[in-house]
């Protein structure tokens, strides 16, 4: 294959991705978190922003692990002047605890909305805004159509949405860019010292649109991630029909 055809092929691939909601990926200069090896699971080797991710915790501990992981991811999306929003049914998040992951709680707008319908309304409203870089929402049941609305909202604004789906709610297939499952693993202490060290997670990508699934071990080392892939699973998913 000549250099020219490779070039053309690359360009065409970019175009197809752009049609599939990866429009922002092509743009340079967007803030995105660096998850090390995990980035390779996504097209172009870049963490998708301007899209909606979903987290599927199975119990309280996994929920907390997802919240911890997200508080490490959000600062990279927000940058020094950005702001983010966290929507919960009942706020249990402890603002001083987020600082450990570099997330300044004073740049976080908390919404406490007991009604599921209200949370979805607020989520859509926040995703539509160009001022809010990232929105995390704890959700119960969501319909496919609703998730599609969120996708449309972020496509217009460029924000990134994270749905933390409640362990007790029924899980339906949604139009999201990736499905994650985060669980805690033993922390790592340098040089085998005793005590609780850097927090670690087992990060599972169950589904990634135009990317691949996989399992990784990820550690938060105070100012960045350290990552190791556990298994080599799944070839790159073929470009699917865009939903």
């Amino acid at each position, binding site marked *: 294959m000549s250099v020219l055809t490779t070039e053309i092929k690359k360009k065409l691939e970019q175009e197809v991705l752009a049609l599939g909601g990866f429009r922002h990926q092509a743009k340079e200069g967007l803030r995105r978190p660096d998850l090390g090896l995990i980035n390779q699971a996504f097209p172009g080797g870049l963490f998708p922003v301007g899209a909606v991710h979903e987290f599927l915790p199975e119990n309280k501990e996994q929920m907390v692990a997802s919240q911890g992981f997200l508080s490490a991811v959000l600062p990279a999306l927000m940058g020094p*002047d950005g702001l983010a929003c966290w929507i919960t049914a009942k706020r249990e998040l402890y603002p001083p605890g987020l600082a450990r992951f570099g997330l*300044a709680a004073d740049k976080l707008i908390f919404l406490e909305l007991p009604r599921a319908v209200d949370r979805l309304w607020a989520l859509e409203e926040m995703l539509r805004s160009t001022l809010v870089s990232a929105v995390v929402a704890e959700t119960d049941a969501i319909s496919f159509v609703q998730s599609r609305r969120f996708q449309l909202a972020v496509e217009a604004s460029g924000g990134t949405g994270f749905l933390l789906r409640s362990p007790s709610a029924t899980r339906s297939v949604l139009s999201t860019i990736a499905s994650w499952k985060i669980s805690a693993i033993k922390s790592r202490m340098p040089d085998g010292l005793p005590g609780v060290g850097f927090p670690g997670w087992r990060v599972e990508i169950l589904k990634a649109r135009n990317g691949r699934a996989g399992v990784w071990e990820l550690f938060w080392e105070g100012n960045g991630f350290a990552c190791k892939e556990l298994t080599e699973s799944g070839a790159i998913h073929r470009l699917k029909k865009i939903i």
Partner: protein
Amino acid sequence: MQKTFVCIWFKYFKTDRLLIRQPDLKDRPLVLIRKEHGKMLISAANEQVLKQGVQHNTSLADARAIIPGLLSFDDLPEKATTWLKALAVYCNRFCPSVSLSGTDTLFLDVTGCTHLWGGDAPYLQAIRQCFAAIGYQLRLSMADTMGAAWALTRYGKDDLIVPPHRQMDAMLLLPPAALQLEAALLARLDKLGLKTICQLLQLPRSALLRRFGQVLLDRIDACSGQRMESWEPVFPPVKYQERLASLEPILTRTGVEMALQNLLEKITAQLKRDGMGIRQAVFTGFKTGHEPVQIEVGTQLAVQDPRRVFRLFEIKLEALSVEPGIDSFLLDIPRTDPVKEKQEKIWQGSAERNCEELAELIDRISNKFGAHRISRFLPDEHHWPERAYQKTNPLFGGEQVQWPSMDRPVVLLSVPEEIQVSVPVPDYPPLLFRHKGQVHEIIQADGPERIEQEWWLQEGLSRDYYIVEDKNGQRYWLFRSGNYASGSKPSWFLHGYFG
């Protein structure tokens, strides 16, 4: 300044109110009673009863002897003011300032209002019709002073409109009781044969002062307008207020929206001239024969753009019921703030143009769900975990914020949950703990971190916190309340989860 007052006397206020709620009692003799020294006394009666010669303060037994089929109900004297206030709200469609008097009278300061209804007579007619539609019988009069208006409703001709400065002429033939004097004084006047106000006015002022005291002169002056009477409006005056009356009742949402837009444009034009912006706005719709409907919005920053305020109202307009038609609208701006040319920065480094947009976003959310649902936090200088942060305004506060770098959990339980632990050595972290029936074997632990009670805020046991990690790598924040040394066995609690 020349003033004009309307006095509305609800002659059968309490019984009318009862009849509105129980229409089947109509045309029956009806009294309200109160208990006094073991006697049942009549405190209010309707027209049928009064016509047959039964007076107020007659005992119920005597009244029953005169009118055999008399119906009696308990009086609720403490409620009367509340009810009257509701009617004052109702009157707000006629004039901006309403005041209560006693338990059955309203004063309206109608200076400069009547021409909107096409003159004094149609104005009074409108008031009468409005209350007749609900079911209240009233007596009305209009005069330059409150005292004269009151006197004429009680003792004068109904619907009397006194021309400017002629109130004393209208009162000449009324009895002295029309001056709102005490019973003892009235008895003395009666004894002396002074049956009309005319007779009183013919006497020299010095003689009146000597014989009856300053009170009588004060009341005469209040009626004539020589002396100002204090005016206590039910609603404090609002500087920015606009009203819109419509010829036909508005029944559609579009109609209401148009009215609101119209009012907002008028108000914001006024505010712009004064360099002010809206912080709070109240939109009221008045209906004939029904309670008024009201919606309210608030904003974080002073807003001058009518479209922005309209968008906030839009979310709430759905809840506004228009049935059976709104015939006049009122827009109040109880809170305004000067508009700064340059808005303050919200967060350090944030672009200034974003302020307005962000304020609008937060307004939309807080107007829909309530301001308490939206929060932002700043660190607070306390070691006690529950007090280590404080809630702040979602827009302002907190430049140069530094969060302390301590190992704190991502999730903190609002109420610590008790756990069962196995601790081989006091002051060491537990080997395992049981929470909600699940046993967690502890592999790694950090601690203790002792946090003492802040005695100037709260007394109690100190806490020793441990960060523990179980076999599965899940991290928890546990604490022991108190010490082992004291002899008793201290309790352990789970307080948080680390991410």
